[in-house]
Structures are given as structure tokens and as C-alpha cells.
């Protein structure tokens, strides 16, 4: 009896295995068939994929020009939802052509943080991004670009340049760009774009900063089409075509030598003129220093997503956990009297720069506030920074005093740091390997 059962089992077992195998196989087979018959999943287009990985960091996930670094950039990233573009070959107020957008993405915008993406991606990819950018504004669905007719160029000549100088005076370009094109005696200095961002009139003496290009044709195009969204208008009705070509030749002739092409004498004269300018106008120099150092990187209040809270640039509030020294929060740098630097005298601010000592006597740690570097600045630059900080509109934001740990947790933290060597201040990374 027992032998029959076991023999039966012997026969049954392979059968069960076989059936199970068939069933399983069928199951996977059927699922495979299902996927084949179901409609293809919506894959994000190539343009969107590239936009999300490359462009969204500055232009924002929705293309509104509000990515986190945009708060620090003096030239703000474009808001694609408005469909207003500066560098076009189309009439004022018109949408740009695909070629215009392609050129801006591929070649970048000189003197801004818009890279020349042609170096990093193929033309097909750039085209895909352009298509995606166009889909962000409804204007591209309803409107057609009105391309300007490029007249006959007038070649540059002394006569044309002299005529261009007259046009420069007639159109009062100096009001924004300065009588010499380099900002000297400019009247309109607080320029704003349509989004309320601060703008600086381009220095016409520095063609390497011309974002739309520096040939006479490029410059002509800027007069002809205007910069939509910025105060630079189109002069299509105001000046004749010849006048605009003369003006373009004149602007080309304004170019000065760039620093990298200067010799010793020119450099010392150039640096002396920069120092003189900084002394005469400390606020712009201070702004340049503060914005390029990136003081706002730490002295601002952030949301959880890493955005600066609107209006809280320079108002402080980023907390540094400097275990075991305590928790420190960046100070309010605005000119608010109660909570900011409003009632600090110049000498008190200088004491922080020079010795890292606050007016209440507290000594700053050597990190993360780099006062030891600021101490080595030229005196004029220190005063320029202070002069600029005074112009930041007051924001009331009370910063808590540093929280220092109690003596026991402080000693325990120091023990971990100094004896257990879990990590030390200015953490060494003792690697002596060759980079592959």
C-alpha cells in the first residue's frame, strides 16, 4: 500500500511541477500580451526631458524663470510663460522665430549665465528644447512671428560713424547708456524690466557682453526690433533705416580693448580708472562685490524646497548647525533699525570685517562667515560694501541668538571630534590618489 502511494506520488510530483510551470508561463505570457496590446505609456518628450534636466534649474520647473539660483543672478533667467523675448529678428511685440530661439540656446547669451548649449548637446536636442519652450506660452499657438526686413547694410566708414554719433545724440541713447556708451553721466539708472527686476544698461564699449551678438548686423537688429520686456524700445518709426545702420557702425566703433588684450601701461591705467570709479560711486561697486561674493547665499531665508522666501533676500535666517559649537543663524543684513544693520555704525560693521567681533562683543567663529578674507579687502571695497548694505530696503526679521550647547554635550562633542576623530573642523580628506 505504502509503495503504491509513494509510486503515485512519484508520478504525480512531476505532473504538478509541469502544470505549475505551464500555468506560470501562461501567466507571464498573458501579461506580456497585455502590455503589448495596451496603449503606449505617455513618455515625456525629448524636449521636456532635456528642459527638466538642464534648463529647469534656473528657469524653474514650469519655465517661469524662478529656479532657485535666479534669486542670486543679477541677469534673471527668462520667464517662458510670457512669451516675451529680447533677442529676436521680429517686429517689436512679436514672438520670435524658431531660429532666434535656436540661436539663443545654441550660442548662449554672452555675459549672462545662459550657457552655449551647442557645446553640450546636438542641434536636434536644441531643436527639441526650443519646441518645448514654445509650448510653455500660449502666444506661440495663436500668433505668427512677423520677421523684420533687413535693409541694405551700410559698410562702416569714418563718415558713417560720424553720422551714427549724431543719431546717438538725437535718440538720447546716453540717457541710459551714458554719453560715452560706458554709463558716464547716465540719467536713468534704476531701470526695471516688465517683471520688476533691476536692469543695467549694457556698456556699449564692451562688445563681448552684447548678448545678442556684436556684429553691426546684430546691433542693428537690436535697434530695429527693441528688447521686448526691457526698457530698450524699437526705433523702427523714430529713426530711418540708414540712421540705424550708421548708429550700428558707431556702436561697433565704441569698443574698447578687453582686459585680456591690454599691455602693462594700459592695464595700470584701466585698473586705476576702475579704482577711481569705485571710489566715486561706492554703491554700484559694493553691489557688484556683494552679489558676486554671494552674501545672499547664506544671509537669506529659505523654504523647504530650497527657494528664497520672497522678499527675504539679505534678511538672514539660514541656520548652521556647527556641532559641537552650537547652532548659528545668519544675521539680517537689511537696513532695518530693530533687527538689521540699520543702527550699526560703519565702525561697528568694520570691526566684524576686520576682527570678527560683533558690537555686542561676541567673537565670530572662523567659519562659515569668512571674515578673515573680508579683513584683507582694500579699505575702499569695505566701505563700498557697507555703502551698498545701507541701500537694501529694511525688512523686519528678528534673528535668534546662537544656541550654544551645555557644557557636557559640548565636551562630549569635542571628545568625538578631537579624540574619536569622527571628523574635525575643516574636515580633512586625506586622499592621495590619482584621479582616473
Amino acid at each position, binding site marked *: 500500500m505504502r509503495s503504491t502511494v509513494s509510486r503515485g506520488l512519484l508520478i504525480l510530483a512531476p505532473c504538478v511541477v509541469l502544470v505549475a510551470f505551464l500555468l506560470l508561463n501562461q501567466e507571464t505570457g498573458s501579461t506580456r500580451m497585455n502590455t503589448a496590446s495596451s496603449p503606449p505609456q505617455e513618455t515625456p518628450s525629448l524636449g521636456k526631458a532635456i528642459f527638466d534636466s538642464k534648463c529647469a534649474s534656473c528657469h524653474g520647473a514650469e519655465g517661469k524663470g524662478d529656479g532657485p539660483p535666479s534669486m*542670486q543672478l543679477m541677469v534673471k533667467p527668462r520667464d517662458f510663460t510670457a512669451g516675451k523675448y529680447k533677442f529676436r529678428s521680429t517686429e517689436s511685440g512679436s514672438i520670435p522665430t524658431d531660429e532666434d530661439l535656436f540661436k539663443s540656446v545654441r550660442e548662449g547669451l554672452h555675459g549672462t549665465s545662459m550657457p552655449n548649449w551647442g557645446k553640450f548637446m546636438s542641434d536636434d536636442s536644441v531643436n527639441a528644447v526650443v519646441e518645448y519652450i514654445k509650448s510653455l506660452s500660449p502666444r506661440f499657438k495663436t500668433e505668427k512671428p512677423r520677421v523684420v526686413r533687413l535693409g541694405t547694410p551700410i559698410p562702416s566708414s569714418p563718415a558713417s560713424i560720424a553720422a551714427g554719433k549724431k543719431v546717438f545724440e538725437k535718440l538720447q541713447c546716453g540717457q541710459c547708456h551714458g554719453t560715452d556708451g560706458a554709463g558716464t553721466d547716465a540719467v536713468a539708472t534704476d531701470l526695471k524690466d516688465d517683471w520688476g527686476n533691476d536692469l543695467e544698461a549694457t556698456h556699449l564699449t564692451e562688445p563681448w557682453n552684447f548678448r545678442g551678438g556684436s556684429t553691426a548686423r546684430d546691433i542693428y537688429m537690436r535697434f530695429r526690433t527693441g528688447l521686448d520686456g526691457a526698457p530698450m524700445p524699437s526705433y523702427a518709426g523714430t529713426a530711418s533705416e540708414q540712421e540705424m545702420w550708421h548708429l550700428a557702425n558707431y556702436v561697433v566703433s565704441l569698443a574698447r580693448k578687453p582686459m585680456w588684450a591690454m599691455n602693462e601701461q594700459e592695464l595700470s591705467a584701466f585698473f586705476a580708472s576702475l579704482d577711481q570709479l569705485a571710489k566715486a560711486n561706492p554703491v554700484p561697486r559694493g553691489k557688484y562685490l556683494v552679489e558676486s561674493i554671494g552674501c545672499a547665499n547664506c544671509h537669506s531665508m529659505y523654504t*523647504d524646497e530650497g527657494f528664497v522666501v520672497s522678499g527675504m533676500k539679505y534678511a538672514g535666517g539660514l541656520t548652521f548647525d556647527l556641532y559641537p559649537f552650537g547652532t548659528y543663524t545668519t544675521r539680517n543684513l537689511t537696513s532695518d533699525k530693530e533687527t538689521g544693520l540699520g543702527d550699526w555704525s560703519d565702525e561697528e560693521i568694520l570691526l566684524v570685517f576686520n576682527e570678527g567681533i560683533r558690537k555686542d562683543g561676541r567673537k565670530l567663529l572662523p567659519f562659515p562667515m569668512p571674515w578673515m578674507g573680508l579683513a584683507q579687502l582694500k579699505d575702499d571695497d569695505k566701505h563700498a560694501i557697507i555703502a551698498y548694505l545701507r541701500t537694501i530696503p529694511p525688512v523686519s526679521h528678528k534673528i535668534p541668538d546662537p544656541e550654544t550647547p551645555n557644557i557636557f554635550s559640548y565636551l562630549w562633542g569635542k571628545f568625538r571630534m578631537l579624540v574619536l576623530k569622527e571628523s574635525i573642523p575643516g574636515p580633512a580628506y586625506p*586622499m592621495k590618489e590619482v584621479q582616473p
Partner: protein
Amino acid sequence: MKKIFKWVLIIGLPLVVIGFLAFLYFIPPFDLLPREAFIQPYAAAVQASLKPIDDPAKRMIAERGRYIVLYADCNGCHTPGGDEGPNWDEYLAGGLKFSWKPVGTSVSRNLTPDPETGLAQREDDQVLDVLRYGLFHTGRQMDWTFMPWAGFANMTQEDQYAVLTYLRNIKPVYHGIPDWTPESRNAENSFYPGDWAKHKGQQ
């Protein structure tokens, strides 16, 4: 003899313990050092960093770059740590590790023109791309909260060129830095000072 030993133990042991606690308390001696002690070695390292340059124009541009690198505080992240503060002999040689949960872990690069481990392998445009756009030669964009390129992007092109000229002419230091990998995004916060830069909301 035994009595002396006992007294040494009674007096000496507390002294050793107190000394050890005082050592823990005061090292690094941020509060004890005069403030110049922080600045002087830094200033000396900045002064000594530049190699002699024959071309006077190039030297002037490099000196301007030296000043910009000083005020932009490149040193704060790009000089490796020694036992007491930064290791000034390896000025700008990189190697500080920064961890921050939202973005992962990064190690600052070697900015000296060392042929094997430094910037000598990078072309001029590739170095400038980092300053202007935060873009590595691989096309990867650095997180702006680690490397604050969004500030350096505000510099004029001439000042960026001066920084480049300076970095090309400082003393090379052999200091290999591990390459960034996608896995380092997932890194935990390090003990110190990685999580020093917490967002206010994340506390």
C-alpha cells in the same frame, strides 16, 4: 614609597582629568587666539600662492585674480584642513567634504594647476564654464548651494578671466580628489560640518 605614590595618585589624577577636559574645552582655541592669528597665515598663503610671472601684463591680471579669489572666499571650501584650521601649504588644493541631505555629498576640487590631479587637464573654457554656469566639463550642473556659482556668474567676464589667469599660475599641489558619482546624491549627512547648512524649515 607607597605613601608618595598614593599622594601622587590623589593629586595627579584629578589634574590629568581637569587638564584633559580643559584641552577638550579650548581646542581649537578660537577664543584664546588673537584675531590676527586667523588672518596672518591666510594673508601669507595668499601672497605666496602666485608663481613668479615674467610677462608684466599677465602678472597684473593674475594679481587682480588673486584679489578676487580672496574676496570670493574660494579658500573657504577649496583649502584642505590640517590639524588646526586650514592647511595653508596646500592652499586651494581642494578635498573638503560637504554633505547636505537634499543634494548629497560633494568634495571640493583641486584648483591648483597640478598636471595629474588639478585643473591642468581642463581647458580655459571648461574652467570658466564652472564660474559662469556651474557646468562641469561633463555637462553636469553643480548644485548652486554647494558651489555658489550663481554669485560668481555676476562677475564681469574680465574678472572671470583674471580668476582663470590666477588659477593657472599658482603653485601646483598634488592632491587627488575622488570623482563625483551619482551615488553620492544619496549620502547621509556627515557628522561635521556637512549638516551645518540646514534649511530653517528642516529643523
